[in-house]
């Protein structure tokens, strides 16, 4: 994973801009990234975040396979041939209450290995979180920036469109989407999930960026750029958008948990991954039902999710600082 390239597409846009127009000076663009990378590595919290996210990601990707070859069960394996095993065992506990390495996170109600389920859930939650955040960044930032910069009637219409999308009954929208595009294949279901998540995740981002742009567009540096005849799109994406980066990255890191939770809600309506597969959100939602009896059903998915979100957040902060144009100038 290369989060430093993915998290800030608007920077990529800006950079592409630099390359195309000042084609002789590719070196400058590269050093910009190298600079940012160096600053990021200096930030210990950000490095910590990066390491944790990397570990969780790698574990999620290879974990289920490793467990299958080591212990012989998959995240959806229910031991139906022995009913005594189909119950929720505490962490590190075997069928007779003895210590066992087989289930370090215990098992769920159906006797399935929690570790395998949490790791497999990570695949889905991380994937969903990151892709949807990217969608939210790309659409939300451009939309908000254009609306804010152009202003006037265009801004008015664009923001009313956002209002309309905001107001629609999400549950019904999702139910209709689901009934109109029924897909049996997991890939199709995932695509639908992204449509459902993407359709809402960018709205708040657009509003926030627009607000920022409104206050930035009359500042001296923009006026100066305009006076020297820089084109509109270039002003927006080269000069204004990088200056909104602070709130944008903060909000983007806030979007990821929100999206993971929305995903859990959508799975209630039948969107996204189907049982017996689960995501962190749906594991936590199931676990919370049994919090009083089998706390490990909530603790492990919950802590894994919280730790990852923590780390993503530190990473986001680090990135913000590393990429901040104002910090760069000092």
């Amino acid at each position, binding site marked *: 994973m290369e989060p430093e390239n993915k998290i800030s597409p608007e920077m990529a846009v800006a950079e592409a801009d630099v390359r195309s127009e000042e084609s002789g000076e590719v070196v400058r663009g590269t050093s910009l990234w190298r600079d940012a990378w160096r600053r990021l590595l200096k930030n210990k919290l950000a490095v910590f975040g990066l390491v944790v996210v990397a570990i969780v990601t790698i574990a999620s990707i290879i974990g289920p396979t490793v467990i299958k070859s080591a212990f012989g069960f998959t995240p959806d394996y229910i031991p139906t041939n022995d009913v005594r095993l189909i119950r929720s065992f505490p962490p590190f506990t075997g069928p007779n209450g003895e210590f066992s390495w087989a289930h370090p996170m215990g098992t769920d109600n159906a006797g399935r290995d929690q570790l395998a389920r949490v790791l497999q859930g990570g695949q889905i939650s991380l994937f969903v979180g990151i892709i949807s955040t990217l969608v939210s960044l790309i659409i939300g930032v451009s939309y908000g920036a254009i609306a804010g910069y152009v202003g006037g009637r265009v801004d008015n219409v664009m923001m009313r469109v956002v209002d309309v999308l905001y107001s629609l009954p999400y549950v019904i929208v999702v139910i209709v989407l689901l009934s109109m595009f029924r897909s049996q294949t997991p890939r199709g279901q995932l695509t639908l999930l992204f449509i459902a998540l993407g359709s809402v995740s960018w709205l708040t981002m657009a509003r926030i960026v627009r607000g920022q742009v409104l206050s930035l567009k009359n500042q001296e540096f923009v006026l100066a750029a305009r006076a020297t005849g820089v084109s509109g799109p270039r002003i927006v994406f080269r000069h204004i958008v990088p200056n909104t980066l602070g709130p944008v990255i903060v909000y983007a890191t806030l979007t990821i948990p929100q999206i993971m939770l929305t995903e859990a809600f959508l799975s209630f309506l039948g969107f996204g991954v189907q049982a017996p597969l689960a995501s962190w959100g749906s594991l936590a939602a199931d676990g919370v039902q049994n919090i009083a009896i089998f*706390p490990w059903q909530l603790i492990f998915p919950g802590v894994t999710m919280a730790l990852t979100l923590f780390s993503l957040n530190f990473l986001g902060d680090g990135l913000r600082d590393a990429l901040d144009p104002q910090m760069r100038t000092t």
Partner: protein
Amino acid sequence: MSRINWKQLSALVLLAAMACTTLSCAVASSNEVYFGKTTPPARNILRYVTGEEPESLDPAISNGQPESRIYMALYDGLVEYDPKTLAPIPALASHWRANDDSSEFTFYLRRDGRWSNGAPIDANDFVYSFRRALSKQLASRNAYMAYLMKYAQAYNEGAVFVRDPSNGKFLLAKDFDEHLPPDPLAGSPVDAAKGEYQTTAEESQEPADSAFHQAMHTPLRLTLPGDEKARTKLLNADAKIKEAVTGKELVPVKGEDIGVEAIDKYTLRISLTLPAPFFVGMLAHQVFRIVPRQVVEKYGNQWTQPAHIVTCGPFKVKTWQAYHTLVVERDPMYWDAATVKLDEIHFYPMSDNPTIMNQYKVGEVDAVLNHTVPNAWLDVVRTKKDYMDGAEAAIEFIIMNTTKPPLNDVRVRKAFNMAIDKEAWATWRKIVKPLTAFTPSGIFHEYPQPKGDAFNPDEARRLLGEAGYPVTKNSDGSYSCPKFPANQIEYIYNTQESTKNMVEWMQAQWKQNLGITVPLRNMDWKTFLTLRAKLDYVGFARGSWGADYMDPFTFLSLFYTGGENGSGWSDPKYISLLDEANRTLDQKKRYELLAQAEAFMLQAQPIIPIHTASVNWVKKPYVKGMYPNAASLYPWKFVYIERDQAKWDVGTPSLAGGY
């Protein structure tokens, strides 16, 4: 910098873990006798969680169980459910008589029945309420429950009679339909009907004969659809009827034509189309409970507002805050007010099970509705002495779409049935009983319930092979069935935690025993119902049904109508067996015929039976007179708060003996 954070992080994680552990200990391992607090409320008030927010306080409107229980507090009918057995016990009818073949009933009303506004209740209230419940304008979802009454269905459907203007005679159904079951009442001449009831000394008079009664005993009239289009279509399809109808006048079926008659102020006679020994048992259903004519006519659909509502049950509405509390208080006007011991019942509409259980644990509610204890909690809650356990007249099954391959092959359907170890499932689910038939086990005691195919994975694999999908054994002992198009079928279900557990379990069984992984697909309830009803799925769908009344027919009737059951399966032989059974007076013989029909259906295997459900709820030990009966319906007038600890319920109260 990072050191501080590590410390904080680990401290937080530790704190969270500690909190969870101590708390879970506090909740789970408490070795109390009961689950949570057991301090009786200061006043004689029962606080009961009844489930979803009631749709309406009008007993004719809703068909939901949460509402049924509220209606039982507010409205009385001819009979009430026995709190233990659910058999009919006298309510506004003090006693009743049936004719020889149970196709006509006479009810003798008590003289002291009163509405909550003091007005007396008489037989006309029943006539009005029944006609209203069946009217097309009200469009009650429960109307079909009353279809046994003569011409009730025709009236409800807005049908028409056909009359010959020359002689005023109506065309008769039997002249056009040779498959029609014999008309029981027409077979017994009115003269005989006169003497069909044995009167006792306490009855002031013998039920009088009347023109209406005579009409009820004439052969069944022909009815045609009232809707022009539907009628034309039917007439064009049947030349004989078309010819007979030409030149005749069409007379709409009116409420007055329904087979219910107030012979006098306190005597009510109900005439049926079929003999139905179980009919009296159905009369406790909400659709047969009465509503106040004046109030309904004055306020229209606003009559159930607390300011207007007039009721006739043991309790009357005090306050109603939607989605919060419905408070009903003891009605001094109620004929049996002396029996009513509670001053008030507070109905709480709640639907989140952990929330309900928490509310119960801290002692904020005294009893909760059925199926509220989450499966994982059973280990703890089931050991407590306030856990209610008992057989339920409800079943869980899997419906298969028999119209689309590969499940249009009965061998494949049978294979999937035999590949599920229902015993193991029931052991895991802890409170249910494994089921191989389509009627619940242990509910209908005289009923010779047939047995479906037992768990037999070898036979299942053989059958699949025979159907063209050979199952091969892998080197590690697992199976695979490469030819089976598993990715083209699905198992659809509505989103619900307990259901999810179940479908995952079934999926695992099939995978283990057949080597087939059926994809699961959840959806919201209404979408699920639509897909299933329209057969817009390939493979399996979740099915469950709870009894409407205490007779096996309430289950078997799910497959009585053609194709509308979600499986697409329908068979004339099945239908004729059921018809024959319902014409049979001898209860034992009737049950045998019903069992034959059931066995026939199980052979065709449009469904895979899973289990007979169990009731699964809790009530505080001081709540007495409330029994875990098979339909989770409680006649509230018998419920009371017991303050003497020595008399508290310890464990599930027995359903044997009187109440």
